[in-house]
């Protein structure tokens, strides 16, 4: 066992990369759930985004266009969920599960012929001056722009929910859709938009894995990150900063346990492999012991006539 082989600076830098897809998917789902909609299809939307982004990036040679396509792909898939639950009044849990299964199948279909293909490299601009700061530079300021996008998205979602009128209306719809309707707010329209935002974020998160983190396409490559994102939103008590903390924690422990495995620590691999899940959930459960609770209308169908 040689712990000195672990470079803490590299470890922290790769923590951020590991956390980004999870953060993107979770922050989108957070907005969806704050509007009162429980979309269990995050995994399906992520993997669809992953292959849409991959295919477009390979065919156009532009990874940025790929990311855009991933967001659109995720949003279009979530629109299917929106139509089922908001207009056809289908059960949200069943529709969400179906969406995941559908997304997994659809992505394998689109992905035929892309196995083993190498996507165009993602530009990684070094931020001048800032990236030269010792220690902090390589950890924080030498990533691709999606990492910063995810951070500012979290900041934006937090500020919108807390300070803006749009955020207040979104929370009101998630809290009591009947009262929001009585006051004249368009419950269904707001929810559809929230669902599509969630889909776009999940799609981006998926493409981050297939274009940047792993750079290749394999079937089912999101491997459960979508489910972690769902759990993260709940254990983070629907609060954006806690979601970011949870994503970082999960990413950090994932990277650390890989390093520990490589360093040959005398703990069975299985325990190391389950550690990110255990530690993240444990920390967030302890943190969510305060008074915060779920949006009161979460998962309930709304029909204006009733």
């Amino acid at each position, binding site marked *: 066992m040689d712990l000195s082989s672990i470079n803490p600076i590299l470890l922290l830098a790769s923590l951020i990369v590991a956390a980004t897809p999870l953060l993107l998917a979770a922050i989108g789902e957070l907005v969806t759930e704050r509007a009162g909609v429980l979309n269990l299809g995050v995994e399906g939307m992520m993997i669809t985004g992953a292959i849409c982004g991959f295919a477009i990036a390979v065919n156009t040679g532009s990874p940025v266009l790929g990311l855009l396509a991933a967001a659109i792909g995720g949003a279009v898939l979530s629109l299917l969920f929106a139509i089922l639950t908001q207009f056809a009044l289908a059960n949200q849990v069943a529709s969400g599960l179906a969406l995941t299964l559908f997304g997994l199948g659809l992505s394998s279909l689109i992905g035929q012929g892309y196995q083993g293909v190498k996507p165009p490299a993602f530009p990684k601009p070094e931020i001048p001056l800032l990236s030269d700061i010792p220690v902090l530079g390589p950890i924080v300021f030498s990533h691709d722009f999606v990492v910063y996008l995810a951070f500012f998205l979290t900041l934006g979602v937090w500020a919108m929910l807390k300070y803006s009128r749009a955020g207040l209306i979104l929370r009101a719809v998630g809290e009591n859709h009947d*009262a929001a309707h*009585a006051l004249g707010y368009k419950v269904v329209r707001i929810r559809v938009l929230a669902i599509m935002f969630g889909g776009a974020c999940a799609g981006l998160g998926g493409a981050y894995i297939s274009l940047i983190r792993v750079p290749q396409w394999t079937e089912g490559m999101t491997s459960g990150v979508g489910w972690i994102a769902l759990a993260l939103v709940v254990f983070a008590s629907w609060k954006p900063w806690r979601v970011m903390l949870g994503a970082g924690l999960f990413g950090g422990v994932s990277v650390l346990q890989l390093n520990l495995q490589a360093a040959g620590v005398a703990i069975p691999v299985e325990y190391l492999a389950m550690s990110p899940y255990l530690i993240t959930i444990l920390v967030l459960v302890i943190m969510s012991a305060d008074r915060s609770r779920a949006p009161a209308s979460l998962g309930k169908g709304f029909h204006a006539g009733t």
Partner: protein
Amino acid sequence: MTGTLLSIRGLTKAYPGVVANNDVSFDIGVGEVHALLGENGAGKSTLVKMIYGLVKPDSGEMELHHLPFAPAEPSAARAAGVAMVFQHFSLFEALNVAENIALGMENPPKMGDLAARIRAVSDLYGLPLDPDRIVGDLSAGERQRVEIIRCLLQDPKLLIMDEPTSVLTPQEVDILFETLRKLSAEGTAILYISHKLEEIRTLCDNATILRLGQVVGTCIPRDSTAREMAEMMVGSSLHVPERSSGDIGPVRLQLNNLSAASSSEFGTTLKNISLEVHTGEVLGLGGVAGNGQDELLAVLSGETLTAAGAVVLDGQPIGNMGPVARRKLGLLTAPEERLGHAAAPDMSLTENALLTGAERQDLENRGFLKWGRAKEFAEEIIARFDVRTPGPGNAARALSGGNLQKFVIGREVLQRPEVLVVNQPTWGVDAAAAASIRQALLDLAAGGAAVVVISQDLDELMEISDRFGALNEGRLSDIRTAKGLTVDEIGLMMGGAHGMEVAHV
């Protein structure tokens, strides 16, 4: 102040199978307090929803200030100066007072400015309210203040109030009426919906009476008696429940220093409640909604368990027994919420009869159901309590509120309870059905059972109770003989004015 503010001509709205409003016409003058009277289902709510832009009329027209008025949505109505205080509060429990008020405004100012304006208006009208409090922690009376202040901040020309006093103590009602009179003197017209006739006589200038969606009459409430108005609403003369004074016997049910925390986050904790109910007696428990009624029912039914000795039935401690064991011993309960608590909405009436009647009516045999007997039991309830439904196979959800209420009360009464506890037995039930439910409760007591009626309808409690007590913030007042209690005394038992003051200007 004179002149017509709102003029309604021939409004009609039909839903599949029912005409909610048929050719309704009337006028409201500037600064007038206009009462809209009618039984449940008479079409009052549909009518005000059309004025507020929530429902589009099929035909007919409205004029506001002599200009055509057809609000496509509530924000258009609000912009035109129409504000509404809802019967079931349209508030968001997890948000604070200022956020709730901002949601009901078209162009809310910044949160800091809004909080200052809320403080100013609440002070002006004697409705104290802290803008930073979470609405879920407020009492029912305070929640209504939130709604009223939300309306007042928009300088309404017409204020619609849908059953505003059902959640208030008599003292709070007086203060509300002061506020409304002041508004009316300033030129704000008020459309006041209620079925409390004495209130309408004190407050309103004119009344329009609806029955089955049609205007059946108008009157000047000050010059009419409550009975005349009631008979116009119902369309026939009313039957008043009669009681044969049975003998008050030994104690059946006893609560000893009962304290219990609420199971819901925004609930009320019960504190040190002691009471006794005797054979042949009706004990009425009043109080404003949300002062521990639901929690008390849960403790009596066995949904909330307590120390064994806190609840005693016929000398036997039962506080730690669940609902099924208590039912076997003869303590039956009927909770307030019909759909979802007293009855399972999507199950048939037979199945619902089985759910509470299985033990006492012998409807099961070693875990297997006796469907035949269950159906007979359901049919008996339907026949004895005049439940209007095609048959026992119908889902509970398909019944109107009043009919389902007759069913859930009848289901318990026919199981020959030793002690029956009911919460809001006639809530949302029309006058004729309410009278028959009250009669059934009186007959049950006369037959030797002990009956506890929890209700927010003081007239009902005074009509049927032998003794009366009131719940206030989870505590029970002294229990006093109901006969001869004055409204003021009752109001003080319910907690007085809860810190409200008369308007300052």
